């Protein structure tokens, strides 16, 4: 047993959350699947329409621009953004669980739900794959991580890896959701009950079932992390670095992965704030969750500048022709203002916002930092992928970039694809809230089972059991 002192309320700090009876947890959380059905239906219809428009725009764009890869930067940036945010979010529920943190239990479901966004990424990336130039054009092979491999290696293996990530994410989500499907089977009605019966696969909560559940969460979590970093590495190298001649940067794939984790934490903070307010779940989502997540967010925000600067200093100090071209293309060139605005949103503003204890230790403070980071991440992805894809195909086999391409502005199709793509990614996240509670019933019950508010000397604290 460990004692965690989270309270000195006589100094203005918060009291530890009270334990909620098990039956109340079940009742409250199952009720969230029907809360605000009309409004959610309206939003779902809107997102569906936008998604369809986005897919149509993508098809139209393919037929209109299939002979010019320089016009696909905005689609690449969108996919990178969705992969970063949706791919990074499940890690929020994986890493602290592996470290046996109790605060994360009410967060795990919402973070795992974001693995559903991978399905839209798998759809949207198909035309982009078709636009990705083969490794060899006119007998000339460009530099890539595939060396002398078949010329369509990135197309095949990147897609397989992405499928692996989505499969692992869905397996993680479904594994952890089994007990809650059983709860839906017992306590809901109509189609939800039937669906719960089918998806719970006869779960009754035997000791053996719980043991294997614990193990598979651990195993899928570990696999997810290993595949996520790998997919980030593949996407960053094949869809950005290998598109720019002379861009050789060992740090960039890790930069892509770390900003993915930053975006993942940010989207979880934002979602947690929304569901707490919208579903009235103040009893289950406490300031502790926001406090802990905002510390993570702050640390990842500082890592942004560490990774960016580590890469930048090599190019800046190198001063060779390809180093100068890299700086001109990605920093001072056509998208300099996007870079500066992005850096402000992803680093400077959240840094100086989340640095304050009072902000981090609040419910409403971290959401502002999270929104700033999501905006900054999107701008950062535009800066990286639009410029990388703006290099003409005939130049990507050269030793280094000799002519910096002009700024490529989005056309109406790009804007529709971006709006539609984001809608398509968030639609399943919204729809799943009608099928299963957005907070895991059994994890919230376990949160209560293992943590008891206690009086500790002249203050209060939470006694947390860590017996496993």
């Amino acid at each position: 047993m460990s004692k965690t002192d989270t309270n000195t309320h006589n100094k203005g700090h918060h009291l530890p959350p009270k334990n909620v009876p098990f039956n109340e947890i079940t009742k409250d959380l199952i009720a969230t699947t029907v809360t605000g059905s009309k409004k959610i239906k309206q939003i779902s219809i809107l997102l569906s329409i936008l998604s369809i428009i986005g897919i149509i725009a993508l098809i139209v764009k393919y037929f209109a621009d299939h002979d010019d890869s320089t016009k696909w930067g905005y689609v690449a940036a969108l996919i990178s953004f969705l992969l970063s945010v949706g791919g990074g979010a499940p890690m929020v529920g994986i890493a602290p669980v592996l470290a046996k943190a109790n605060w994360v239990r009410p967060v795990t479901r919402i973070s795992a739900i974001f693995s559903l966004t991978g399905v839209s990424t798998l759809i949207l990336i198909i035309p982009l794959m078709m636009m990705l130039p083969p490794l060899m054009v006119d007998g000339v092979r460009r530099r890539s991580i595939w060396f002398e491999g078949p010329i369509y290696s990135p197309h095949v293996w990147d897609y397989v890896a992405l499928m692996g990530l989505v499969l692992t994410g869905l397996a993680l989500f479904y594994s952890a959701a089994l007990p809650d499907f059983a709860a839906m089977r017992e306590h809901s009605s109509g189609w939800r009950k039937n669906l719960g019966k089918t998806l719970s696969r006869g779960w009754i909560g035997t000791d053996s079932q719980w043991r294997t559940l614990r193990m598979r969460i651990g195993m899928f979590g570990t696999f997810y992390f290993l595949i996520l970093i790998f997919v980030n590495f593949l996407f960053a190298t094949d869809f950005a670095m290998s598109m720019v001649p002379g861009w050789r940067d060992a740090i960039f794939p890790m930069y892509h992965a770390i900003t993915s984790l930053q975006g993942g934490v940010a989207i979880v903070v934002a979602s947690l704030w929304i569901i707490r307010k919208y579903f009235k779940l103040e009893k289950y989502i406490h300031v502790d969750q926001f406090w802990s997540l905002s510390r993570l967010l702050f640390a990842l925000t500082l890592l942004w500048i560490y990774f960016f600067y580590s890469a930048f200093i090599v190019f800046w100090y190198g001063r060779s022709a390809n180093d100068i071209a890299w700086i001109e293309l990605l920093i001072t060139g056509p998208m300099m203002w996007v870079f500066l605005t992005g850096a402000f949103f992803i680093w400077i503003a959240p840094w100086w916002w989340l640095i304050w204890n009072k902000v981090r230790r609040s419910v409403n403070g971290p959401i502002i930092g999270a929104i700033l980071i999501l905006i900054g991440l999107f701008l950062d992805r535009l800066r990286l992928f639009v410029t990388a894809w703006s290099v003409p195909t005939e130049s990507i086999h050269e030793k280094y970039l000799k002519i910096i391409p002009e700024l490529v502005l989005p056309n109406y199709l790009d804007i529709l694809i971006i709006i539609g793509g984001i809608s398509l990614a968030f639609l399943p996240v919204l729809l799943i809230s009608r099928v299963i509670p957005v907070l895991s019933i059994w994890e919230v019950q376990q949160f209560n089972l293992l943590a008891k508010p206690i009086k500790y000397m002249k203050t209060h604290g939470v006694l947390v059991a860590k017996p496993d």
Partner: protein
Amino acid sequence: MAKQSLIGLFEKADSAADAMDGFNNGGYELGSFDVLTGTPYPEGAFGEHVPQHRLFRFPAFGAIVGFTLAVFLTAGTQIAYPLVTGGKPILSIFAMLIIMYEMTMLAGVIATVVGIIFESRLPNLAPGVYDKRITEGLIGVVVTVDNDSKVKDAQKILEKAGAIEVKHS
């Protein structure tokens, strides 16, 4: 007599643990009684029998198979089409690593999914006696017996431990 299952419902975990002790001390066969909960209690909290599992073998087996296939694929293609590039050996390990890693991971994940289907005993087509209040925090201790005297004995153990209700299948 056909096998019969009984379930005792408990409000307190300590009482459920007492019932499990009762079955252990009463000479009931290991595996004939189990505890049902709505949330995972720490392993061994009820003094339950912890059977051996083989779940870790599945990802290990899958990973070995995936890795082996990847080695054959990458080495096979390079040997079949030997092209010397930049003075590097035909079998360059760094060029093979990406595909080897990817196939190892994928086969590991697929084998884990298969392993879970076996080890979780899911789908459970005959769940037996159950009570939906288990998902509301009650703890069920379920026992399966095959003669009348054992039914009465099991009921007595459950009631003595403090079951608020005992149900028969």
